[in-house]
Each structure stands twice: as C-alpha cells, then as structure tokens.
C-alpha cells in the first residue's frame, strides 16, 4: 500500500478497497480539511465538506479517468467546489478573505507529508506573492471566498469582462510563477511519490 501511486490507490478504492480508502484519507484528509476550513471558516462545516468529499471519492473512484490528471487535483478540486457551495449556502463568506486563517485556529503539524507540505506551501505562497495585486486579489476572492465573477465585478467596480480577462491572466501568471520555482502542478501534486 505504501508504494502505490495515487492512481493505484484510487483504482483500489474504485474496487471497494477500504484500506486504500483509509490511506487516501490519511494522505489528503488534512489538506482537504485545511482547504475547507480556510473557505468555510468553521470546523464543523469543514469536517462536513471533507466527509462529503470522501463520500464522493468512494462512490465515484471507479469512474475516475486517469487521463484527466492527478487524483490529488481531483480530490482537492472536489473539496474546493463543495466548500464554495457550502459557503454560498451558509453565507459565511468573510469580507476580508485575504487575511490568513483566524488566530483561534491553532495549526497543528500534519501527521504525514509534513515536510513536503511545508515546502509546497512556501513555494506557492512565494508564487502568489509575485503576482500583481489585482491578479492575486481576483484569485483569492474567487478561490478562497467563493465570489462569482458577477459578484467580483460588483465588488471591484469593474466590468465583468475585466474580471474574466483578469482571472485568465491571473491563472496564467500563477502557473508561470510556479514554473519559475520549478513546479509543474499538473505533474507534481502527488505526495505519495515525493
């Protein structure tokens, strides 16, 4: 089990392998919870998001198309979408999403992949910091605060066309900034092999 790639693990999960499912949770449960918590800002809701996400993984793993990319991207994309949907339903979006996590949430070291996650976090934070402010702003407001592009246009007082083009430019800039740091997300988000 330890030597399996994420693709291998997910294939086993698709066949109903509970041990592989537990392994997948141990690998990505922390990242999923951290992301969900950053978005919904509530421990219980974040736990609900993670539970929903892993239910979807358990039920949909056998239909995962490995040609579509890394399982980690799939898992974290699902987590993000469910968290954004949750925050929109709960109207818990915070006015200042650019802040770091609330101080009341004491960070604890993840059990697994601590070193890898630490390096990744530092590099991605560096890449984000290199973006022009308008680019970073649109990414963070959309990704972490769950604003739609229409809402962003209103909040930023710019035409929606500007929001769309700015989002496009921002994601390209982030990809380039990550590449400049030697990171290619499409290839690398697989903690089991790092």
């Amino acid at each position, binding site marked *: 089990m330890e030597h399996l790639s994420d693709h291998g693990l997910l294939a086993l999960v698709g066949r109903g392998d509970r041990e592989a499912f537990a392994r997948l949770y141990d690998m990505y449960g922390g990242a999923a919870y951290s992301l969900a918590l950053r978005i919904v800002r509530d421990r219980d809701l974040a736990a609900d998001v993670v*539970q929903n996400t892993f239910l979807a993984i358990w039920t949909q793993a056998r239909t995962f198309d490995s040609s579509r990319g890394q399982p980690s991207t799939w898992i974290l994309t699902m987590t993000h979408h469910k968290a954004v949907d949750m925050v929109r339903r709960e109207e818990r979006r915070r006015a200042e999403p650019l802040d770091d996590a609330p101080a009341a949430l004491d960070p604890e070291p993840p059990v697994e992949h601590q070193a890898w996650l630490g390096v990744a976090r530092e590099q991605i934070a560096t890449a*984000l910091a290199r973006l022009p402010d308008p680019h970073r702003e649109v990414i963070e407001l959309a990704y972490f605060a769950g604003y739609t592009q*229409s809402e962003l246009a209103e909040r930023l007082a710019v035409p929606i066309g500007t929001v769309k083009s700015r989002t496009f430019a921002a994601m390209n800039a982030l990809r380039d900034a990550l590449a400049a740091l030697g990171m290619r997300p*499409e290839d690398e988000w697989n903690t089991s092999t790092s």
Partner: protein
Amino acid sequence: MEHVDELIAGHALRALSSEDEERVVVHLAECERCRRRLRETEAVAASLAYSVPQMAPPPELRSRVLAIAEPVVAAPAAEAPAVEAPARPGRPRPRHGWWPRVSLVAVPAMALALGAMVVWNVSLRNDLDSSRDDFAHGAAVALPGVGNVVAQTDGNATLFAHLRRAPAGKTYEAWVIRGTVALPAGVFEGGGTVELELTQSAKPGDKIAVTVEPKGGSRKPTTTPIATSRSV
C-alpha cells in the same frame, strides 16, 4: 471553433455564472484542446489548496469518513430514521450496529446519500458488473446508491429506487440530464422500493439523476445529485 480559455480559468475557480458555466461545459464536451487546458488550469487552482495553513482534522473525522467504506447490512428502511442529529465533535455517539455511525451526518442530503450507500454497498457486492453498465435503451442503467433506470426505445423510462424515506419537508426528484439541461422527471418520497415512471422521456445520450429537493419538487435542481447515471 472558438475556444473558451477565459471561461476555463473562471470554471476552475468555480466562479462562473450559470450561463457561462453551461457554455464551458458544452464546449469542453467537444474540444480536446480545451479539456487539456482545463486539466492544466485545475492543477494550478488545486495548488492553492496547499498554500493555506495546514490544520490537523479532528480525529473523529477519520472515523466518520472511514465509516463510509465499512461493510454494511441493510436495515429495514421503514425502521431507519429519516435524519438524525449531526455528527459534531464532542457529541456522544452511541453505536448500535452500523446505523448510528452511518446516519450521524451533518446535513440531510448527506444522511440520504449515506443511506443510499447502504444499497450501493450491497449492490456492489452482489452486482458489481451491472453497476458499471452504461446507458443503453431497453437495458437497466445503474444509478449508484439509488437503484436502476430502465429506458425503452420509445423513450419511456422507469426508475427503480431503493432509498430511505425523504426527510420531513423534502422529496426526491428525478431528472433527465440532456446536455447541460436538467429536465424534471418526477418526484417520489422513498421508503422501500419505489417504481417511478419518469414524466420526461429519455433519449440516447441522456443521463438520469436524482436530487433531494424541497417538498413538491423543484423546476431546477437545487442540490448536488445523490446519484447520476452514465451515458453513452
């Protein structure tokens, strides 16, 4: 063909309007170049997940998640409570067989989905191959966790569902998914096996989905489907 690069960026951030979202989905269905672009963009977006402070999940969350995959024995649907108290850290969680652990979920839709897991697990053991069936007229199409749909060549389709009764104020609703449009196809309450003739005909390529909706049903889905069939 006009590509949709700008919208793909918004799609990856889940920030598009429903109109733009539909435009992207329709385009992606026929454009390999943009699907590749989406894969790249989603990977970049997912990288943002690692930029947040890493927090240890509550230990009980692991138990809740792993309970999803536990082998289960189906309890009589009529005896199962429609919705139980949410699972919250620190709350006593008595265990009587499998049911309390599976049903102690946070939202009604989750409870229903987990209830559906009972059927799914049993059907997985008994009929794994048939659960992989693609949509085929005249043949049973699996709705994982819910049951099956049988579509006839004339478009008439019947849903066979095995779900617990919907919670108070809620109902199940079936949908025919045609492209990016969800057509309402009938509501039912669950509670044992239900046979529902869909009010919407199903054509080759359509998918069938089931959602949990407010009592009386909705004109458009308001929740994530608890099950969606595959199509060819």
